[in-house]
Each structure stands twice: as structure tokens, then as C-alpha cells.
């Protein structure tokens, strides 16, 4: 078996250096130079490809980062925090979407959060960032299904507690700022916590209990791991709460639309009780009655106080605003008749620290503003009209302000919260 001849590399065979030097022709030399140039060109082209590819990759990465930059959550435009003594109407800023038939709106004390009640979808309260419009969470009465709740108006007190009226539950549910359930106002003088405490005199500290009108009772368990039991709750048909408003001085105003018993309930303050509960200090004061006459209401939507502690009641189906003195004596009503200040079907309202009264006119499809600082109310202006465009409303229901400059409106059938400013 023979071994095939092998080509040894020049450096591996010392004898090779002893071979005679062969002369090269000019052609061979040119070819060699051409090969060298070609190799250089190829090497250069490869380098270019590498550079090009690097540039492309870099461009893609840069582009992606740029797109990310462009689409990043960006704080919404800063707005004038305080506008004082302006006589002109506010202007539309932007809308926050992602709400389904919003009917109630409230702002947290620091202005960072919005609480919007929904009449469609899952009928929950949505927490929205006032800065970005981003949804931060949802909440509703625990252990109820969508057909058992109908939240309408919402208000937040100085401590950040969120009060929500529910038409189907005939109750006011109270939550903390994060939407964690605290307690339920079952009636004008009854809190669920107080009722549970009367039933379970040895109630442990960690006991959990929720109310559901449709079960005519409360779900109760002694601790997070224990079994739920249903506790019958006496029929709570003494009221039908709809509007709720917590004044800067702590007063809690609830409008009661129970048939034949329309009235306003005024609580001086609702302090915290033990644990998560609330404690009614005493029976509320009340004023008003059902009807169309002076001092009478038909479906009062909301009630609030001005800086002089005078009461304003949005008398929904009578299409007017009623003013009561600080001692709860009827004074006069306004917003009726014809003209720009006349109301069609008023719904939610808000009074700012400058005693400007903002009233949502659901059928008028605008917000009407009255100056109530003096002895007589003065209509200032309205803003908004019917439609689906920017600054247009489709059955707005409620309004809330942060300070005196930022206005939030629940634009029900446009499924959005509109933000206006001066």
C-alpha cells in the first residue's frame, strides 16, 4: 500500500528553500497583483457589509427605542391648578376613555385620582389616574353580581374615603382610597358594622361582612379562612339614597328619593369607627318633602353647601335648583323658565371654593355655571353642546372639580370622562 504524495506547506519542508528560484513572467505578476487587489476589494466589501449590517441593526434598535419613546405613557398636560375670579367659560382639554356609561365622578383630595361609576358593563367604580388617564383599579360591593348593583353618584371625603350610592342596593357603600370595602350605610341611621356588632356581640377583630340587598342579608365570616354564613338583615326600606356630597367642612349630604319621601339628609360628619367601620354620630338632620311646591323635591339629584354653609339642592324632575339657608329653611329656587340659565333636566353638580355652582344639564347637553357667592344667584355661562366630538356631550350626568381649575365631567353616552380647564 503506497502512501500518496503529500503537499507540504512551504514552511514545513526545509528542503524547499533550497530549490532554485523560478522567475515569474509579467503576466503572472499582474495576475498575482490582481488577485491581491481582488482579495483586498473582497475584504473591503466584507467590511462594508459588516458596517452596513451594523448600521441596519443599529437603526432598527434606535427606531424601536424611538417608537417606544414616542408611545411611552406621558403625563397629560399640566393644567392651571387654581383659577380665581375668572368670568369666562372653561375650554375643553382632553378626554379619558375606557369607562362604560359613566354617571358619577369624584376627585381624590390630592387631585391624583378620579373615581367614576359606570351604568353599563360590570357596573363598577373605576379608579383612574388624573395625570395619565390610566385605569388603576375597579371596585364594587363585594359578593354582588352585575345585576344586583347600580352605582350612581360618588364622593370622596378629606380622608380619601369613597362613598358610593347604589340605586338597586338602596344603600351607600364606603371604601378606602384603594377601593377596599369598609362599611355600608343601610339606612339613615344604620351602618352594617353596627348591625353586625349587635348580632355578634363577641365579634372577633378580623371579622368580615358584606351587605347584599338581594339576599336581604349580610355575608359574614369570623376570619379570612372561616366559612361564610348569611345573617338576615331587617328590611331596609326606610330610604332610597341617590345623591351624595361631602363638603369641605366634613358635612355629608345624601338625597333620599324614596317614593313620597324626597328629602335631604345632613350628617355633620361621619367618623371612622372601630376597625374599618364607620360610626354614625347621631341621626341626621333632614329637610324637604316630595312635591312640586316651594321646599319640595322630585328626585333630588344632589345637595351641597357653599362657603357660607347654605344648601343647594338639585331638584331633578322639577328642573330647578333650590336654596336653603344654613339653618335649613327654604329660601328660593332658580334655573327655571326660559333663557340661557334655564335648566332642562339637571343631574349631578359641584360647588367650588369660589362658590361657583356647576350643574350638569343632562338633556340640555351642557354644564351650566352659576355664581352663588352673593345674595342672589347669577348665571355665568354654560359650556358644551350635544355631539360626539371634542367638548361635546351625549347625556352628561355628573361633574367634579379639583381646586377651582380642573373640571371633570362624566359624559355617559360618549363613554368618557371629559376634562376642561380655564
Amino acid at each position, binding site marked *: 500500500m503506497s502512501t500518496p504524495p503529500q503537499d507540504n506547506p512551504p514552511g514545513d519542508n526545509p528542503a524547499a528553500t533550497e530549490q532554485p528560484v523560478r522567475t515569474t513572467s509579467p503576466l503572472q505578476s499582474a495576475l498575482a497583483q490582481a488577485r491581491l487587489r481582488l482579495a483586498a476589494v473582497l475584504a473591503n466589501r466584507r467590511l462594508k457589509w459588516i458596517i452596513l449590517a451594523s448600521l441596519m441593526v443599529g437603526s432598527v434598535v434606535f427606531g424601536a427605542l424611538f417608537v417606544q419613546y414616542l408611545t411611552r405613557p406621558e403625563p397629560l398636560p399640566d393644567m392651571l391648578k387654581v383659577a380665581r375670579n375668572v368670568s369666562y367659560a372653561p375650554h375643553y382639554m382632553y378626554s379619558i376613555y375606557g369607562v362604560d356609561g359613566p354617571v358619577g365622578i369624584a376627585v381624590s383630595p390630592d387631585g391624583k385620582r378620579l373615581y367614576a361609576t359606570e351604568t353599563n358593563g360590570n357596573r363598577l367604580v373605576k379608579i383612574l389616574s388624573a395625570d395619565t388617564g390610566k385605569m388603576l383599579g375597579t371596585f364594587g360591593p363585594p359578593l354582588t353580581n352585575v345585576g344586583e348593583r347600580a352605582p350612581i353618584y360618588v364622593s370622596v371625603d378629606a380622608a380619601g374615603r369613597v362613598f358610593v350610592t347604589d*340605586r338597586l342596593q338602596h344603600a351607600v357603600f364606603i371604601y378606602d382610597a384603594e377601593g377596599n370595602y369598609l362599611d355600608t350605610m343601610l339606612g339613615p341611621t344604620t351602618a352594617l358594622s353596627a348591625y353586625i356588632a349587635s348580632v355578634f356581640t363577641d365579634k372577633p377583630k378580623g371579622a368580615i361582612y358584606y351587605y347584599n340587598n338581594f339576599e336581604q342579608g349580610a355575608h359574614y365570616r369570623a376570619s379570612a379562612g372561616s366559612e361564610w354564613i348569611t345573617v338576615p338583615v331587617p328590611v331596609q326600606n326606610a330610604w332610597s339614597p341617590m345623591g351624595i356630597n361631602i363638603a369641605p367642612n366634613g358635612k355629608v349630604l345624601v338625597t333620599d328619593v324614596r317614593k313620597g319621601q324626597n328629602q335631604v339628609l345632613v350628617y355633620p360628619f361621619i367618623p371612622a369607627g372601630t376597625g374599618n367601620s364607620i360610626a354614625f354620630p347621631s341621626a341626621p338632620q333632614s329637610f324637604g318633602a316630595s312635591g312640586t311646591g316651594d321646599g319640595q323635591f322630585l328626585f333630588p*339629584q344632589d345637595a351641597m353647601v357653599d362657603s357660607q354653609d347654605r344648601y343647594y339642592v338639585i331638584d331633578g324632575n322639577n328642573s330647578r335648583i333650590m336654596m336653603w339657608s344654613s339653618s335649613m329653611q327654604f329660601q328660593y329656587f332658580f334655573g327655571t323658565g326660559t333663557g340661557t340659565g334655564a335648566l332642562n333636566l339637571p343631574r349631578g353638580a359641584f360647588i367650588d371654593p369660589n362658590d361657583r355652582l356647576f350643574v350638569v344639564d343632562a338633556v340640555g347637553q351642557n354644564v351650566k355655571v352659576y355664581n352663588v357667592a352673593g345674595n342672589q344667584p347669577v348665571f355665568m355661562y354654560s359650556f358644551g353642546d350635544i355631539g360626539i366630538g371634542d367638548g361635546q356631550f351625549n347625556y352628561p350626568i355628573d361633574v367634579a372639580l379639583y381646586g377651582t381649575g380642573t373640571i371633570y365631567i362624566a359624559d355617559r353616552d360618549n363613554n368618557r370622562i371629559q376634562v376642561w380647564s380655564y
Partner: protein
Amino acid sequence: MIKIVIVFAAALFFSLTISSVASANGGPHGGYAPATDACAGCHRTHTAEGPQLLIATSTYGLCMTCHGSTTGGADTNVQDGYFLDSRSTSTNAITSTATNGYLLAGGFTMYKGTAATSSHDVSGSVTTAWGNGANRGVVGSLALARGGLDCASCHDPHGSTNYRIMNNVVNSVTISMAQVDESVKDYDTEHWSTGQSDLCTACHATYHVTTAGSGSSASVATAGGYAHRIDMPYSYSFNNKTNVNPETIGIAAGGGTTYTLPLAGTDVVCQTCHLPHGTSATMSGLAAGGATGSGTLPGNTTATDSALLRLNNRAVCETCHQK
């Protein structure tokens, strides 16, 4: 004598001080004073956005502002099918809560706490109706005066001489349904009068079969098949078949309660079996169009279409006939 004076004075005092409850024909729906400002609540004379000089383009949206799920201006919640101020064990066989009674007409989006499985679409977009052509079991075009079907197609927001402020004329058909004292707000008893069927068949015309023996008579078969007679006496019997007649004891529908279907006086009318707003009754098996649920026969329901029936499957048949 003193006692008589005291009694008279007390009666006078209470009659003057106890406020009357607004009926369907009162409040915003009629009973207007000459100097009323109520017109401006819904209409604009020169700058209206919608037809009939309405301030709004959507009649449904307008009505829902008071009668929607949040019932911002009324106790009648037609979306969920509740009246928010009544305790009712009524004919529904399910106990309402102390504060929420079931609406007798059902609900458009929910009923008895669950999603509606069929309801009238009153958004203003519907322009067809079952049985509005030559035949039952098919859909015919509907030419309502206001365009599409909406709340005002059946109800008169200004009040009417009919029960539940039903229009006096619907789709060119005169409607007459005797009023009752609605100040009582009786949401436990249905007060349909014999004219009720005219209301439904104003649009669903070919279902207005009143011929005796129409379940077997060829005289009605040409319109789409034999048909159950309406506006007929509840105790009707035919061909000496004693079991044709409805049972009078109702049917146990669960919870030990008995369900009896409502009549117009002694007559079977559309609302005896159907809820005009919407129902959450569920259909399964044959009632949902057969084993496949395909509903291939004309007018068959599908699994998601309960044809506004009051009760699950065909419990409305069994309630009367109890085979």
C-alpha cells in the same frame, strides 16, 4: 258632634297634607298646566337636534336618563326590569327584595338579575318585525312613523288614555287599553285589557289570529301554518277535548310558589306568554331549535333567542295545558 268635627277635620288635614303619588300620566308624562315649562325639558322650538323637535338625537338615551339602570329620575328601571319601591311575590314566582319589585313588562338588558336572552331593540335602528308581512314566521319590513323602533313607538311620553301610557295609535292601529288607578303603583298585578293584543300586532300583524279553532283550521294555515289563537277565553275548549282548556291552578315554578300567567280579564293575550321589554328565560334542547340548537324551522328560537317568553323553555305551554 265634637267627634264628627274632629274626624272631619282629621280627614281634611290628611287629604290636604299627604302628597299624591305621580301616576304614569302625571309628573313629566302629562297633566301639564297651561304655563308649564316642562316642554323645554325635551323639546326645542327652533334648534332641535332630533325629530319631533327633540332636544336630543336619541330617544332611547333621553328615556334612559330617568329610566335606565341608575333610575336617575324615576322608580321604573326598564333596563334591569325593576320597580324600585315595591315588595312583590306576585306572579313571578320569585320573591323580589323589599325594595325592588320586578317590572311586569320585563327588562331590556337584564331581568331578574341575569342578562336578557331576548328583548325588543328600541335603539331606533330596527325597521323590521316578525310577522309583519304576509306570513307568520318571517320578518317583514316595518315603516313606523318615527323611523326605527324606540320607546315612543309604544309609549306616549306626554301621557295617554291607555294603561301604562301606551300610545293611542301604533303603526296606524288604534289602541285602546283601559286605564287603571296607577296612583296605587301596583306592580304585583297585571292589568292588561283585551286591547293589549292590538298593541303587539300593530307590528306583528299576522300573529293576530283570533279565529276559533285556528290551531286546526286551514283558514289560517295559508299565512304560515296553524296558529295559537289569541284574544280567546282562558276556558276555551275545542272538539270536546277537555284537556285543551287551561288548568286554572297555575304551575309550581320552584320554591313552592305557583306561577299563573296573566290574562286580560278572562282572555289570553300576547302578554300572557310574552314580556314586551325583554326576558331572561333560557331555552335548551328542542326549545332552542332542536338538538343542534340551529333553529332551522321558521320562527324557531335559538339558544340565545328566547322570543320574549316569560318562562324557561316551553313552561308557558305547560302552565296552562299541563300535559
